[in-house]
């Protein structure tokens, strides 16, 4: 609430129409603003004046007696015994004598501003109302507990929501992956079953005797897949590159890195000029790839067809 909103809340506070949280906020504000406090008092006076519109009703004698008896049974102590029916274990001398003393002011002052509780035992105007402060503290604490619980519940709910969302994202990511994998496998199946698909075996050379690979490509479209096995691990900054050698001239293919077991699956489109290649080879190149082989060392090589 800003200052204007607090001013607006004063009328509602006087009517007891504020919600608990707003009332607490307003009370805190009033502690600091004398101007608002003055207006609050005016508003409360106006609200209390509504009581004048109600017809007074005589209190039955028995009730009057009960009331006067009950205050004798509850001697008050300095600072004001707070709480409903709170039995202050009063000292013996804080009894009847105090009752008459305390109210003496009222009996004597039949002026137009009777003092509600003039007393020569209890200060009429305590510097700070300890009990009142305590009460608003208890209220404030209760309110903050409620707020804390609500915020806690909100946070729990929010976290759960986030977890679920993360899980959902993960699941839908996983589902996308599976979809892609299925699409790839379907593509490969098509590739292998296509009538003009050529499958070439590549064998490991002397520097990679255990390595082997299969290259399948469709002559018409150039769609190709290369599967490798047992290729040695690549050093940092390096990658394997596929070459199509046609007419003694190597055409660059894609670069790839095998996994720790030397397996790799490379999808590639063979350039038109490479579709009649007689030889396919794999060399170790810089990982961004090269346009012509930077080395003569071949890892995989197809037999000339």
């Amino acid at each position, binding site marked *: 609430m800003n200052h204007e909103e607090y001013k607006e809340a004063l009328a509602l506070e006087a009517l007891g129409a504020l919600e608990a949280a707003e009332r607490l906020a307003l009370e805190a504000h009033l502690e600091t603003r004398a101007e608002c406090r003055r207006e609050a008092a005016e508003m409360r006076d*106006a609200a209390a004046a509504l009581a004048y519109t109600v017809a007074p009703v005589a209190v039955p004698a028995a009730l009057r007696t009960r009331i006067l008896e009950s205050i004798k049974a509850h001697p008050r102590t300095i600072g004001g015994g707070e709480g409903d029916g709170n039995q202050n274990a009063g000292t013996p001398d804080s009894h009847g004598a105090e009752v008459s003393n305390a109210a003496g002011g009222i009996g004597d002052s039949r002026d137009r501003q009777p003092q509600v509780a003039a007393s020569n035992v209890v200060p009429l105007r305590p510097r700070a109302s300890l009990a009142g402060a305590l009460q608003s503290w208890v209220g404030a604490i209760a309110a903050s507990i409620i707020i804390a619980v609500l915020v806690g519940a909100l946070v729990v709910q929010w976290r759960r929501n986030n977890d679920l969302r993360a899980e959902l994202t993960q699941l839908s990511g996983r589902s996308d992956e599976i979809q892609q994998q299925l699409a790839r496998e379907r593509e490969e199946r098509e590739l292998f079953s296509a009538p003009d698909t050529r499958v070439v075996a590549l064998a490991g050379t002397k520097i990679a005797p255990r390595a082997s690979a299969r290259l399948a490509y469709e002559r018409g479209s150039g769609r190709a897949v290369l599967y490798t096995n047992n290729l040695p691990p690549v050093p940092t900054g390096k990658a394997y590159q596929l070459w199509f050698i046609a007419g003694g001239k190597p055409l660059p293919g894609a670069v790839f890195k095998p996994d720790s077991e030397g397996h790799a699956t490379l999808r590639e489109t063979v350039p038109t000029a490479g579709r009649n290649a007689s030889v396919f080879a794999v060399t170790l190149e810089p990982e961004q790839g090269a346009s012509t082989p930077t080395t003569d060392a071949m890892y995989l090589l197809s037999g000339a067809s």
Partner: protein
Amino acid sequence: MAFAALHDRYAHILFGLMLRILHSRVDAEDVLQEVFLQVWQRAANFDETRGRPFTWLVTLARSRAIDRLRSSNARDRVASEAAHDVMETIGDAADEAILAENREVVRHALAAIPEDQRRTLHLAYFEGLTQTEIASKLGEPLGTVKTRMRSGMIKLRDLIGNRLGSAR
């Protein structure tokens, strides 16, 4: 004993208020007793620089009555006899004259306030409804209700001005 004088000066006003709010003699008697006990115990907390004694007493009494109203509403309360139409003149004649004058001043002021504003004041003060409860009861936006209450209260304050005599 002078606490008795305090009691005799205000009890019938407060008892009328209790009955108006609670519509139950049993509850009204109960709460009135509670209120006087609190007045007695809290008198030390009363700070006359922060407000008038009449306002302090009435505010305390009204808020205890609304507390009771809310808790007894929750208990599915049985309608009890309404006794607030009983008007009796007791106590000091001069006080009673002032009381009657004040009643006229406030009634006049209320009559000059638009009905929709007056209604919100009554629902809050005597029925103990909060702003949101009033808004939902009237089917009006909360902002409208707040504005009505504020306008009504400002008019009430200005119209009453210093015209109230002090049986305060």
